[in-house]
């Protein structure tokens, strides 16, 4: 009778709230799907057995006791940076200056260790180093924060640019302190005296790092969730107008929060220099200031969730490295697999919030459309029908009272 209109091929609608196990089910499906896609790509491009590749990947991360410790150390450092960025991110202040703030903290630590290494006992030197690192990191974050609070400058660009300045400063001091002269490297600082080095506890040199970050994670969770400061940060992040309206000092909150953010980045720099690397280079942070952004987002700025997302990213990175060496593949191949897995995990969040309806499978199927369109086409009669139904309801309604 009349042309059937073309229904949209796909349309999406918001889902009802899912229970936590349904949400995790979707995430699990995403990971399985990612592994299948990766397997296909592996077979096609390299001809290797994908299961073997996965096993190698797993072994690369967890295979030996030593590898597990290294994994733990790397997770701790990445988590520490993510924790540093989180308060700023919760405030919608996009601190991309993690790299620079870490480098400044590392520079502060190295300066103290080199200059004051022989003048005081370790029990005094370590706190001095920590204070220097935290202070340097905080200052590096404070500069863009002040400008944001005062002139509403763009923090993304500003913090990003501060990274380059920090890199150049470190490059300069590496030349000042280079050992031996002309090598362009600092080498291991205080190698013989170990002055300023973090002590080895329980026979493992990474354990103290891991414990520090574990405590910091819990502290940050409590700070953000239960403290007045944490509450102010959330309010400022959601709506500056509301924050002003209830008398929160927005500028001060920005400055305070960014100093905290920078201080923890600085502390990460300290852990890197005094805890693990015992040297200072311009590539000390190794891009983790940016990886941490992803860690924080994946966990939706929840410090406890970041433990998982940091673990995932480090696992993928270490596993990818292992398959590159074990199968003498290009390092990029591991990165491709990592990229595919991350893509599926991020995409799964979409399916947690939305559902798709496909043409012909939705509730507005063609058969149903046919039956109820018929009365309309036949004209008058049904109209009277609806009218009477309406007026009946109309009469009933006030009577319901």
């Amino acid at each position, binding site marked *: 009778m009349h042309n059937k209109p073309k229904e949209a091929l796909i349309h999406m609608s*918001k889902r009802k*709230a899912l229970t936590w196990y349904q949400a995790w089910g979707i995430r699990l499906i995403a990971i399985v799907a990612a592994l299948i896609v990766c397997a296909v790509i592996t077979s096609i491009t390299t001809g290797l057995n994908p299961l073997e590749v996965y096993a190698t990947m797993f072994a690369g991360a967890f295979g030996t006791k030593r590898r597990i410790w290294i994994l733990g150390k790397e997770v701790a450092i990445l988590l520490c940076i993510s924790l540093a960025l989180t308060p700023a991110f919760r405030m919608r202040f996009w601190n991309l200056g993690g790299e620079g703030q870490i480098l400044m903290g590392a520079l502060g630590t190295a300066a103290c260790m080199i200059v004051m290494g022989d003048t005081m006992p370790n029990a005094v030197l370590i706190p001095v180093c920590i204070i220097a690192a935290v202070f340097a990191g905080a200052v590096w974050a404070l500069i863009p924060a002040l400008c944001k609070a005062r002139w509403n400058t763009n923090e993304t660009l500003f913090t990003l640019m501060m990274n380059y300045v920090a890199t150049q400063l470190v490059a300069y001091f590496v030349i000042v302190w280079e050992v031996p002269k002309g090598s362009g490297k600092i080498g291991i600082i205080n190698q013989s005296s170990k002055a300023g080095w973090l002590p080895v506890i329980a026979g493992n040199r990474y354990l103290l790092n891991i414990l520090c970050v574990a405590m910091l994670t819990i502290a940050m969770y409590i700070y953000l969730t239960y403290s007045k400061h944490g509450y102010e940060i959330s*309010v400022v992040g959601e*709506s500056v*107008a509301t924050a002003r*309206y209830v008398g929160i000092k927005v500028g001060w909150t920005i400055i305070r929060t960014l100093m905290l953010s920078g201080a923890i980045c600085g502390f990460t720099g300290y852990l890197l220099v005094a805890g693990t690397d015992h040297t200072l280079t311009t590539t000390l942070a190794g891009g983790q200031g940016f990886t941490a952004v992803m860690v924080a987002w994946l966990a939706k700025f929840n410090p406890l969730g970041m433990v998982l997302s940091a673990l995932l990213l480090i696992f993928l990175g270490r596993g990818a490295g292992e398959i590159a060496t074990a199968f003498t593949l290009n390092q990029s191949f591991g990165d491709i697999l990592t990229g595919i897995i991350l893509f599926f995990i991020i995409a799964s969040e979409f399916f947690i919030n939305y559902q798709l309806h496909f043409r012909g499978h939705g509730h*507005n199927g063609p058969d149903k459309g046919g039956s109820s369109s018929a009365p309309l086409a036949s004209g008058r009669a049904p109209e009277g029908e609806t009218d009477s139904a309406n007026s009946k309801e109309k009469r009933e*309604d*006030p009577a319901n009272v």
Partner: protein
Amino acid sequence: MENTTPAVALRGITKTFGTVVANDHVDLDIRKGEILALLGENGSGKTTLMNMLSGIYYPDEGQIFINGEEVSIQSPKDAFRYGIGMIHQHFKLVDVFTATENIILGLEEKGRLDRAAASAKIREICDTYGFSIDPNRKIYQMSVSQKQTVEIVKALYRGADILILDEPTAVLTPQETEKLFAVLRNMRADGKAIIIITHKLHEVQELSDRVAVLRKGAYIGEMMTKDTNPQEMTNMMVGHQVTLNIRRPDPVDPKPRIEIKGLTVTSPDGVLKLDHVYFDIRAGEILGIAGISGSGQKELLEAIAGLQRVESGQVLYIHDDGRKEELVGRDPLEIQKLGVALSFVPEDRLGMGLVGNMDLSDNMMLRSFRDGRSVFTDRKHPHDLAEKVVEELEVNTPGVSTPVRRLSGGNVQKVLVGREIASAPRVLLTAYAVRGLDINSSYTIYDLLNRQKEEGVAVVYVGEDLDVLLELADRIVVLCGGRVSGIVDGRTADKNEVGMMMTELGGSERIRAKEKES
């Protein structure tokens, strides 16, 4: 047969957002040459239903027929193809473009862009229906009502035969509303189908031919306007009997609480927002503030609450013992501690005063989270307060841990006003407290304000609806372009007189002069 086919017929339209059912199998007919008023409380799904007609949402279930033909509207472009034009509450115009440029924006006409021809066509449309706009004027130079006109012309230019207006009179003065209605009547005479969403029942009676009512997403019924009355319409919307009179108790022992002397405020870019404003706010009285939106109402309240930089002048808080305290230059927190509470409902309802992503109890905490010495927040009291507000004000919410943004507009406002009242203020400043609220919720708010007044609180009510101001307020300060154009008694003032004062300074004198002439 031809003229019995409705211009638009909706059959079994259902739309859900997550767990919220916005429309539940709605059937609705819209006929040519008629004005249909779509009524319903906030959150009853009127706007959602219309958005499905205009291609913004796509229904989960159901069918849409245009002139008897089943269609699928997947985008606003489709909607225009079927001759449907919607005028939204918030205008969708480019400020730096002229009216003509805005109207032809996005139209993919073949050939060269011919502005002159477009302008001519626009003038023709204006002449046909009685609009008065200058096609070459830039949007930012226009008043709210002119911008609205541009939106309507834009729809007509694209050949709309079915026009949907979402609360078109919320931002207009009574005179502008009259003009709009005249134009809409012309369009009806021309055979267009018009749907108007409004909360103002007297407008429904004045303008519409037929009324359809939605409640909680479901279609309740329809009737001819001439056969019904505001009481019946309200009962249908709400689902039970409501009284339609605003109570106005006599002021209790009114004495000055805040004195405003020569208050002058300029915006950061140097525009004069308030110009030497003088008046006083009295305890035990509701002071209404009338004015076209943007006449300085926001700046005035913000200046009192310490949120606005004041150029010159004084705001004096008068203690019970007669001591006067200067508020200008004080910190918002200090002013809050004196008992001055501000509940400002902005256009987007959430922008100030509430945090959309936080739940009810966290929003209650906004005022009180600093209390106590602990570094940690006290969550118990805000939680209790949230439950109390939900219960006392009948907030429709799944629970106190639901994010505020999930609530409908009316409920959001109840939460905001409820929190401000819970702080036991001495001065309660409210702006647009019933903005976009349905009748039932509005009356709850009026009642709350009256109870505050009876307890001796100085209440300031900035409102958009003159009828309400005249029924609720004891005195009305009329603002026009940042200046006080008059202070009138709410019990004796005349609506037209206040309307004139809103549009030009000293309007009342002009009216008197005219009366003398005649």
